[in-house]
């Protein structure tokens, strides 16, 4: 029996709060902004919401601003009557929370699930340069001790950021396939070009190849512009059961397939293939659950917490062969708004702001609904199929959406 339950799910509404640097606003208020926006967008009322899902849950010690609200806060603030809810971070990437919602509606546990993700890293981290994991919550003092495989085997070596870990994957890719910084730059340059057309993006000044090549180095080969921009903001997505989606305001976006697999070791330094990361398994699974092919996809919103991750998703999802990503994006034409596969049309997280995965799914929906304004992809018709992907290292999840019935 080959059950593909996610086909019983559809996205029926999206919402987003203000997004910006150091907004200084209560993160729960941002969350409620996004949630109410999404409920209204779907043409639903809060009484219709009977499921709630989020990543990473209400509390992540040692990561200031990484989460702005958990299930409990939103449940109570909106006085929801829930049949099903789920929040946490041991998931196949951030979109794992949305996949859970798909599973919940497909199995009849809920009808309309409100999914949300809130960050306020910009305000929480304050001024100055980005600090290492745990620094600020004690790791900078002699008394702190790193615990758990991820922290214990990385922090003692000054590898106190995913920037360092993922830079090593990029280096392996450079080594194996001859990928170059000038190629990787296109992820950042494309994001910035698209951000210029998005009034909600946080970085909108033009960026040239010279700007990129001369930027401050973070962890080679990553310069400042290869690293996403911490922001404050909340994103909400409504997942509805397909038959109930018929009553909503907009064309439901069918969940055609999801990918959640992780076949290698769940570890930043022990995963078998250092250049593909977990994206390999998640993407392969997605294509096994649909008859659609990469050539059917009109727009790709691929996580760019660091530029290299978006390149790796392009390869993993089969827009080009593994190892050919550098060549594929060289010059930037193929991934531009009018290119073969328009990428990160809102400016990604690099220039749009680090909404941590949910922003990618939000933008996939924006594009399928034709709400992209100046950055809308038209070829010449609206795209009918979009892929959204989030996560890097041992975290990865992806979703294929279709606006066709």
């Amino acid at each position, binding site marked *: 029996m080959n059950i593909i339950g996610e086909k019983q799910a559809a996205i029926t509404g999206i919402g987003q709060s203000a997004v910006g640097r150091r907004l200084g606003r209560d993160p729960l208020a941002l969350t409620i902004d996004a949630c109410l926006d999404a409920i209204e967008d779907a043409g639903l009322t809060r009484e219709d919401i009977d499921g709630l899902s989020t990543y990473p849950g209400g509390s992540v010690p040692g990561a200031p601003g990484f989460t702005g609200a958990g299930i409990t806060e939103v449940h109570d603030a909106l006085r929801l009557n829930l049949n099903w809810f789920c929040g946490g971070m041991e998931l196949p990437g951030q979109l794992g929370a949305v996949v859970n919602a798909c599973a919940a509606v497909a199995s009849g546990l809920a009808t309309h699930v409100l999914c949300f993700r809130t960050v306020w890293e910009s305000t929480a981290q304050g001024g100055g340069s980005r600090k290492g994991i745990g620094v600020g919550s004690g*790791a900078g003092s002699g008394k702190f001790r790193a615990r758990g495989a991820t922290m*214990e085997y990385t922090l003692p070596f*000054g590898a106190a950021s995913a920037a*360092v870990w993922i830079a090593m994957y990029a280096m392996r890719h450079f080594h194996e396939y001859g990928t170059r910084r000038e190629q990787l730059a296109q992820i950042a340059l494309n994001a910035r070009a698209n951000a210029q057309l998005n009034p909600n993006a946080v970085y909108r000044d033009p960026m040239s190849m010279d700007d990129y090549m001369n930027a401050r180095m973070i962890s*080679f080969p990553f310069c400042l512009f290869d690293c996403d921009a911490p922001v404050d903001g909340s994103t909400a997505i409504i997942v509805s059961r397909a038959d109930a989606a018929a009553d909503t305001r907009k064309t439901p976006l069918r969940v055609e397939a999801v990918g959640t697999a992780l076949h290698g070791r769940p570890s930043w330094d022990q995963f078998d293939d250092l250049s593909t990361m977990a994206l390999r398994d998640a993407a392969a699974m997605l294509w096994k659950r649909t008859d659609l092919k990469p050539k059917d996809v009109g727009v790709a919103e691929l996580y760019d917490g660091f530029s290299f991750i978006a390149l790796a998703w392009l390869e993993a999802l089969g827009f080009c062969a593994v190892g050919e990503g550098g060549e594929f994006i060289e010059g930037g034409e193929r991934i531009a708004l009018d290119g073969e596969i328009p990428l990160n049309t809102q400016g990604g997280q690099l220039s749009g702001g680090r909404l941590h995965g949910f922003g990618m799914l939000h933008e996939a929906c924006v594009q399928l609904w034709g709400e992209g304004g100046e950055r809308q992809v038209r070829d010449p018709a609206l795209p009918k199929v979009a892929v959204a992907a989030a996560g890097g290292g041992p975290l990865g999840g992806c979703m294929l959406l279709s606006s066709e019935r």
Partner: protein
Amino acid sequence: MKNAPLPDKPFRILPAVTDQNAHFWCGGKYDELCFLRCDVCATYVHPPAPVCPECLGRELSPEPVSGDARILTYTINHHPWIPGFEPPYVVAIVEIDEQPGLRLMTNIVGCSPDSVSIGMRVEAVFEDAGEDGIFIPLFQPHRDYAA
């Protein structure tokens, strides 16, 4: 392997030493890089686990390896993530000679960051953390290069 004092010792965030991981973090006191090894099928297991991932054997014992390794990948970090751990420094993932896939994250020391490359042979060297009996396993260019 030489337990040599290293110049310019940085501030390091130290691991919590437990009964399960002490062989790894504290073996450097005796110039030994130790991993758990399955008593049945001889597979090295890292990080420490209470089961062999190959044969599911439940008896594993710490055992030293040569400390010789190869750099699988690395980065030269330039950002000051941790006050007192001043960049630039090299973070690498190395694979231990004794077993494909037996690897760890570490720093490459004893050479210029610009001289580091993927595939380079390295050997373990330990930095006395001065607390909890911890000796941090680092790697430097393999002695063969000096010959």
